[in-house]
């Protein structure tokens, strides 16, 4: 038992967090609270994107559907894609980055707590900015990758695409700021003894993702700046009449776009790699290989972008090269899949909902991955691209991959987030309904695609042999709504009424399980000394692997406050929010540039002073009181 870090003395009961007023949330710089904000906001946007999808499916349920107009349909699928990717999945991952990374590396907060808050506020305001237009039927309508020249003023003179260009620009700021923050945090804030090769695998995958963000987002920023200048200032980057090359946009977008898809999946991979070992009672199989394959996937991810462009006529050589690099990625990903199975092999598998979602990811992502490899073969892809086969592919990897992984993480870490369990009973309904209906929704899309259904069509004719598949997909969506609704109800209900959880309810092995649930604002009363990859596990054999704490044994003792422990915590600050608001205001000014230049310039100058001013205020106030 000696080597097992039994529940340390200070983990022994909960005191309700001191200040919970609205102001405390607006000014918070606590990574755990910011994580919670990310989680809730992203779930709301997920529902929103899902409802948009539900309308899409309603329209496609029957041939020549008449639920929405063609214009509205374009806005719906554009916003569905944009919302799900930039406002739902990325921020859901961010919720886990924020909440988990400092806990897993044994730190008291991220490197730049206020920058962290800033990222969130920019995301929230940017998300609202890009979402509101749909209520006035002026939402972006050029598809989530807004191909030029359709997205230029010549062919989209209305305001719709302005919201998209500006909105993505804003969201980029948030992601980049977060990336610099987390890279610094992971490099420099690890507890003593937490060598890189002792870092929990989720932190590792997040680490890779932050580099992908830092390197991929500048490229789309540039592409968007060009489009923005074209639309507002009459430059010619995508002006066909001036000899522009529309492929410039496509290349720049996908140089960002493909790393982006790994930005979406790697955090989910990381979470699953945490869940599987805990519930199999075995360490992750081949930890080093899991790390290296993650890095490799990230690196290769920058060399495959043109596989989204096999149909544009790049010529046989380029097609061949990008085809091969794309296929290569199957290898490191495969290693992950097999290592996960090997992790479970010979274990003592306990099927909690979290575990079920993790296992389901392995099963479902493989399907999406294999259809991906089918895409990677250009001649075959020429029959698949821009059909529902692609839609099937990316929903298997995105829903069956990213979303399943994030749900696994949610069920696994919810007790740590809130100190309460999610209901396993509701969770099982949530899981099984989602699993079934997800397949019912997306599997038929393989057929409809290969049987000749292009994507992004608001109506298809009868008698084309597509009725049944589309009906199945729509039926599946209805079930998905019910399933997801159950899941969300579970989250809502359990947040305050769930069963009380102890500091280490699942018998996890890593640092976050050594501290109370929910953790005190300072996380660790004393910075732990890390001696192994699984500090809480006794893997030298013996009758007990880990000391699973229970709520009972932790009842009745109190947790010291930061003051008592003499720990200085950063002061709350409103400036990140003020600064973020100023930046959004500045961008809003652009919208009026055509209709009312003077007003636009006025707004932009004022808000520039606004945010620069608050930035100075923020930087010149010390983070914490001196001692």
């Amino acid at each position, binding site marked *: 038992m000696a080597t097992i870090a039994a529940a340390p003395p200070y983990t022994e009961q909960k005191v309700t967090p001191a200040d919970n007023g609205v102001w405390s949330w607006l000014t918070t710089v606590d990574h755990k609270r910011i994580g919670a904000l990310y989680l809730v906001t992203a779930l709301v946007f997920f529902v929103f994107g899902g409802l948009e999808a539900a309308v899409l499916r309603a329209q496609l349920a029957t041939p*020549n559907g008449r639920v929405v107009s*063609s*214009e509205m349909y*374009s806005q719906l699928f554009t916003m569905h894609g944009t919302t799900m990717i930039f406002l739902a999945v990325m921020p859901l991952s961010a919720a886990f980055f924020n909440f988990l990374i400092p806990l897993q590396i044994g730190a008291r907060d991220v490197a730049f707590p206020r920058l962290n808050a800033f990222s969130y506020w920019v995301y929230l305001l940017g998300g609202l900015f890009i979402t509101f237009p749909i209520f006035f039927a002026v939402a972006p309508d050029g598809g989530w990758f807004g191909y030029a*020249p*359709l997205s230029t003023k010549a*062919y989209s*003179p*209305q305001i719709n695409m302005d919201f998209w260009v500006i909105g993505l620009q804003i969201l980029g700021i948030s992601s980049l700021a977060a990336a610099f923050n987390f890279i610094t945090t992971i490099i420099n804030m690890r507890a003593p003894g937490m060598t890189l090769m002792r870092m929990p695998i989720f932190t590792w995958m997040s680490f890779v993702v932050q580099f992908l963000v830092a390197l991929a987002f500048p490229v789309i920023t540039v592409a968007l700046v060009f489009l923005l200048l074209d639309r507002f200032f009459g430059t010619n980057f995508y002006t*066909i*009449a001036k000899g*522009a*090359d*529309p492929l410039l946009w496509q290349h720049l977008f996908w140089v960002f776009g493909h790393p982006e898809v790994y930005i979406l999946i790697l955090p989910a991979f990381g979470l699953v790699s945490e869940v599987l070992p805990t519930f199999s*009672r075995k*360490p992750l199989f081949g930890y080093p*290989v899991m790390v290296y394959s993650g890095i490799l996937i990230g690196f290769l991810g920058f060399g495959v972008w043109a596989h989204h462009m096999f*149909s544009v*006529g790049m010529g*046989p050589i380029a097609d*061949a090269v990008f085809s091969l690099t794309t*296929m290569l990625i199957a290898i490191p990903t*495969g*290693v992950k899949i*097999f290592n996960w199975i*090997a992790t*479970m*092999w010979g274990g*003592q598998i306990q099927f909690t909902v979290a575990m079920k979602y993790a*296992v389901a990811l392995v*099963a479902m992502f*493989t399907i999406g991955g*294999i259809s991906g*490899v*089918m895409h990677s*073969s250009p*001649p075959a*892809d*020429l*029959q698949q*691209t821009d059909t529902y086969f692609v839609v099937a592919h990316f929903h298997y990897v995105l829903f069956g991959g990213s979303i399943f992984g994030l749900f696994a993480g949610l069920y696994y870490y919810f007790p740590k987030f809130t100190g309460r369990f999610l209901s*396993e009973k509701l969770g*099982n309904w949530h*899981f*099984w*309904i989602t699993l*079934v209906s997800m*397949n019912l929704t997306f599997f*038929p899309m393989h*057929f409809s695609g290969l*049987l*000749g259904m*292009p994507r992004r069509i608001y*109506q*298809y004719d009868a008698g084309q*042999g597509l009725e049944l598949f589309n009906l*199945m997909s729509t039926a*599946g969506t209805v079930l998905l709504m019910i399933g997801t609704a159950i899941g969300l109800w579970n989250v809502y209900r359990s947040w305050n009424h769930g069963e009380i959880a102890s500091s280490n309810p699942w018998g996890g092995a890593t640092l976050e399980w050594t501290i109370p649930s929910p953790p005190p604002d300072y996380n660790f009363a004393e910075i732990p000394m890390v001696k192994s990859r699984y500090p809480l596990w006794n*893997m030298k054999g013996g009758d*007990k692997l880990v000391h699973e704490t229970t709520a009972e044994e932790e009842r009745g003792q109190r947790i010291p406050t930061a003051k008592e422990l003499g720990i200085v915590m950063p002061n709350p600050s409103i400036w990140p929010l003020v600064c973020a608001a100023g930046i959004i205001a500045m961008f809003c000014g652009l919208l009026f540039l055509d209709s009312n230049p003077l007003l636009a310039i006025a707004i932009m100058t004022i808000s520039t002073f606004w945010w620069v001013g608050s930035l100075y205020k923020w930087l010149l106030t010390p983070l914490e009181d001196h001692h």
Partner: protein
Amino acid sequence: MVGTFRPRRLAAFALLGALTLGLAACGGEYPNSTFNHNSEYNSAIDDLFDKLLFWGTLVFIVVEVALVYTIFRFRRRPDGRVPKQVHGNTALEIAWTAIPAVILIFIAIPTVRTIFKTQAKAAPDALQVEVIGHQWWWEFKYPQYGFSTANELYLPNGRTVNFQLKTIDVLHSFWIPQMGGKRDLISNKTNYLWFTPNKDLPSSAWNGFCAEFCGPSHANMRFRVFTVTSAEFSQWTAHQQQVAIFPAAAAEAAPSAAVPMVMPAVRQVSSGGGSVPIVQVAAVLAPAIDSLPVTTKAAIPVWTFPKERMVKEFPHTVPTTPLPNTVSYNESLLAEGDAERGRQIYSRSSCIGCHAIGGTPFNMSAIGPNLTHVGTRHTLAGGLYPNDAKHLAYWIKSAPHLKPGSIMPTLGKGLTDPVRKNVVTVGGLTDMEIADIVAYLQALK
């Protein structure tokens, strides 16, 4: 976990149901399937796809079986002993790095082969077809025969056809699922695509689609493909080459009053949603004018793919899109439509600003489809509707209502154009005038 029992049981049934449904679905009739070997191009693709499918299925089975076996075999037993703490196994990990690599080689080699095979230069004697994408219809030019048609493509079986793909506005993608893979139409660039409809095909009809999102009517940018015997093909081309067989076609010149009306029509087009920069219009104007050799009425008999065969053997190529209830047209007038009157109305209407009719004075613009033989086509509006009097009438009365975002403006007097948001007054057409124009266009064989 009692709570889990019911949902799991339910799920099992549901999954089974879904699967059987899926299988059942595979029995049906699929007119746009990508799996048929109707051209050497699609044979190459499909052979490749079969390989992908084989290896993919293999991987799928291996992974899923391994996974399912593991989770059942190693369920937590009541006597929860601590399992053996294994950290990894180099040999194994090398194995499952290497095996996928090998599989990928089996995929990569035929892939690269097929890439270079299908993207080689087309045979020099190939039939040349210039495909020009417009929002939202297809212009097909046969440079070797010197005529231009729209939305209906005729190909001789057994002869290689080489498509030169261009667009005058946004990106589109040219796709005939039954014939092979798609190729995008890229602004400021010409793309190529070639294949050979199988020699032994009976002359038949297929569907084609636009596969790159190109605006509100992307879904409606379809076309028809007729692969016919070379004899039929030469009949068709011979007829298409001559100007429309219409009494007194070449006769009186268009009243010059019409000309100023043309320009507003064109300007109108160049602004607003999904429009064509005038520069590019000019670019395509030139060929359209002189490309039609004016043969006098040594009437070569009309030949088109027989309508009844479409209806009987290829029903899926007959569009069934319902008419919107937002426009109404007094269909009883259609019976009284008079072609000659129609021709006169046409000649002073803004139609001539966008459409060309070979052998008539108003044979200029190529903003809209060439109407020389419009009477012989089976579909209209990018293959969205059958080309009969009724649909034609509705179309002329208000194209944008039938085809969202349509660049062809509303012409029905008093209607509001949904794209340009203006009420049609001057130059607007009454139902009767429309009936006449319909009669005229129908007569253009």
